[in-house]
């Protein structure tokens, strides 16, 4: 399938990136090549095959529903952010 400029813009939107104009062109070429390559799966017969999503051989690993102390404190976590006020993370306006 052909990847158009608007497809790249749409994918960047889904991916939450801003892209410079030059990047849209170069990523467009790259993604066209990658999608061309992965499309070869079409020729593989997968009728009646169930999908595999994980390979750790287990299901439903249970644990008690208890509140346990975490490895990092609130102060340590808040110290990682650029701007903090009253125990909250400050960001630019939302609306």
């Amino acid at each position: 399938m052909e990847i158009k400029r608007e497809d790249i813009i749409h994918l960047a939107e889904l991916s939450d990136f801003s892209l410079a104009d030059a990047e849209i062109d170069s990523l467009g070429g790259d993604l066209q090549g990658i999608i061309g390559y992965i499309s070869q799966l079409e020729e593989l017969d997968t009728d009646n095959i169930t999908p595999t999503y994980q390979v750790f051989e287990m299901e439903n690993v249970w644990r008690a529903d208890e509140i346990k102390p975490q490895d990092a404190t609130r102060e340590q976590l808040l110290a990682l952010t650029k701007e903090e006020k009253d125990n909250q993370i400050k960001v630019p306006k939302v609306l």
Partner: protein
Amino acid sequence: MKTANKTVTAERLVRDALEKAKYFADYNIFTFLNEEEAIKKAREIDAKIARGEKVGRLAGVPYALKDNFLSPEGQTTAASHILEGFVSPVTATAVEKLEAEDAIMIGRTNMDAFAHGSSTENSYFGPTHNACDKERVAGGSSGGSAVAVALGIVEFATGTDTGGSIRQPASFNGVYGLKPTYGTISRYGVVAMASSTDCIGFFTKTPDDMNLLMEITSGRDEKDLTTLPDYYNNVGAKKITKVGVIKDFDNDSVHPEIRKALQNKIELLKSKGYEIVDLEMPALKYALAAYYIIVPAEVASNLSRYDGVRYGFRSEKSEDLDALYKNTRGEGFMPENKRRIMIGNFVLSSGFYDAYFLKAAKARTLIVQEYAKAFEKCDFILSPVTPNPAFKLGEKTSDPVTMYLEDAMTVPLNLAGVPGLTIPAGKTEDGVALGLQLIGPRRSDKNLIEFSKELA
């Protein structure tokens, strides 16, 4: 492994390692050197030894930590821009276990940003150079770790292997590199790439060192519920009689010197009385395409957390929150990160999900089944790690698909969750390191490491 004692102190070992790290600075191996803390810890261990107290199995052994393992020493950036300034308040389980045995981290190693790549050229800090030939790539994504061990700076280094990121650089630099069975070592505290294939492993100079590190770090972890119940230390010795060779991995598409290395080891095995079994594994041909659908899909989800709000880099010129997300991610990710995130969102988006993601998940089933069938016919498989030896810096950066093709022989193991061990296999006529990989069924890691001694 050389551990500290009364005559050779931990401080001596650590200072030697740091000196070597500085001597080889132009290889661009480290993103951070842990000088002060490492020497402080070495002195504590030496004091324990002087007092006659018991010390750990890795007492004073200097090691290098891939930059995607969280620990409070230095910034954990996964060699990316978007994690710039992130000093972790938590420590990865694997690191805790190594430190509990008194190993000493002397530095964080360079890698492809977020482990996306096969050459360490996608690092925000520039590429690492190959240990044998500075004009060639170190391999990736764990390039820095492989070179740190190959140049003898440290006795071992940690790595992560999502599609070959331990085995390929181990091969390119002539050291041992293990991708264990999926779920053997806890992934807690390691920057996630693709959760269903990510594995923690090591680079060492010997199989015995590898075994020791596995004994120490393997096992169930409540903080990573995908870890398998403890098995590594309970596996009995298995008698190996049959070794499989995959027909499709021994043809003209593979570099002649790699085929020769494979043939040499096959002859060696035959001379020791092992039976060689030819294997047909036709579904492996599709593993790379399936991998570059499944992994980007998981990457797109795992990397959605990097938004500049809670930690790391934040773009400064944003008027509102949405622009903050978009600018931070636009400026903070490397081109390869963007390609993978976008491909991931493409294969997961409505209209394409069935044709790509679901199709790849079904192909994965066929690959899992193919390994299961192969291990009915043989105990282990001997295979090339890559179609070509280490390539020149810049040779494959202009076309992502050409770079991806180098992963064709390593990714199938990750999709199936089976272990693979890279073993050194001599050098090319030009002096470039060669390696081969031994592949075993799930949970055969210990026997796989032991068996590799037969090929030394």
